[in-house]
């Protein structure tokens, strides 16, 4: 009896903590130091396209998190079974199925959002971040680590597009999540005062500018230089 218990304890000690330092890094690295958008410059198209308002951006971010975590998990589970010669198409099939699932669920339960995001949900399939993580990480690592890796990268993507959307909606439409902010501020100051919105922020150009500023701020802090 006693030996069995001791053995079990040893096994527990050997296995890594659920959120060990290395695993935490899997999540935190893509947030700043290895951010998929600002450092790796992947997934720019959707970062530009969906970020005119906070709400669709949030739905997009959640969709990407779901797709990335599930895709990383399934590919990692299958990693020893997937024939190397067709691995890319297998990854694509898995990602495409997951994206279609998201699309169907949105269509059923959030039809307005489905209409608004339309093609952009489908375009998650071509989001280089998803395929990049599958190819670079999930194919060679255990399921749990892959989930963390996918979650981290998706989170890194999400906070960037949400930040861009924050400024674009605030400056472009004068609101946040559809709640008018500029009107409120204007009425506080006085009846003749009106904060003007900037139409440039609503167009894709606005996203480029905000994204550029974000990258600038981030790189001046981290000291990252492209080689």
């Amino acid at each position: 009896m006693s030996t069995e218990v001791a053995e079990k304890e040893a096994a527990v000690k050997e296995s890594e903590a659920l959120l060990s330092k290395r695993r935490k890094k899997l999540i935190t690295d893509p947030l700043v130091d290895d951010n998929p958008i600002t450092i790796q410059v992947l997934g720019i198209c959707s970062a530009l396209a969906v970020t005119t308002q906070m709400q669709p951006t949030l739905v997009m971010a959640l969709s990407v998190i779901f797709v990335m975590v599930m895709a990383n998990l399934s590919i990692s589970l299958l990693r020893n079974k997937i024939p190397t010669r067709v691995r890319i198409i297998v990854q694509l099939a898995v990602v495409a199925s997951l994206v279609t699932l998201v699309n169907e669920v949105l269509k059923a339960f959030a039809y307005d959002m489905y209409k608004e995001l339309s093609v952009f949900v489908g375009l998650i399939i071509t989001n280089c971040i998803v395929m990049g993580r599958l190819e670079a990480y999930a194919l060679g690592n255990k399921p749990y680590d892959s989930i963390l890796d996918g979650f981290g990268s998706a989170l890194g993507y999400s906070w960037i597009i949400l930040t861009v959307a924050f400024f674009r909606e605030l400056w472009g439409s004068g609101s946040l999540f559809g709640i008018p902010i500029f009107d409120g501020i204007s009425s506080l100051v006085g009846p003749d005062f009106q904060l003007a919105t900037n139409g440039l922020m609503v167009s894709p150009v606005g996203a480029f500018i905000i994204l550029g500023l974000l990258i600038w701020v981030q790189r001046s802090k981290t000291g990252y230089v492209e080689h």
Partner: protein
Amino acid sequence: MQQSNAYIITFSIILTVVLGLLLSGTSEVLKPIQKKAEELDTKKQILGAVMSADEISGMKPEEINAFYESRISSRVVNIEGEEVEEQDGVQVTAETVDVGKNYKKAPEDRLYPVFVFHEEGDADAAISYIFPVYGNGLWDNIWGYLALQTDMATIEGITFSHAGETPGLGARITSSDVQQRYKEKSIYSEDGELVSVIMQKGEGKDYSGDPHKVDGLSGATITAEGVNKMLKSYLEHYRAYMEKKKDGAPSMALN
């Protein structure tokens, strides 16, 4: 490690079957919910022609369904303006007519749904008539619902939707400030000619004095032209019906 061809083919087949089953299963389960969502969306669009977007977004789905039931009556007409009850032996209702499918037929063969916005509980006390319109934008189809007051000349309101116009450019036809521009405009000139309402090229001018022009969409001229063509052609198609229902038209008394 190089796998054999047999292994690769087997793997691919299994993967395809599993993913296929997963997707078709989900689609099958979600279909009824999706259909309801679509119907609700259509009702919202129809009501959008006579109500403000804020009013509609403040209503719950059940409220919209109830409101639609009590305030909208519908019929289907043909190009002659005669009411149609059945086609090829199948009963037709305005809600089931697919305007997009009909758009592919010749105008004479199409079915034209009409939605009447009426006083609560009295289907004869029409407030406005809502006509679906359908056409081509820049990339894909565009459609909408045009509400005319009972004089069949003044626009009560309009909603547009699109399948694939450019976000921020052509897709702006769905925004309510663009749709507001059509309000109170007139589709007939003073000498009774059907001139429709034309969206102009360029944006930022004030057309409030002109009953047949509305401000354009900067950077989306082709979408705007599509809208113009769509309105003009469908107003022509509905003309016979509109003549019959016009205020003071003799057939009104016969009904």
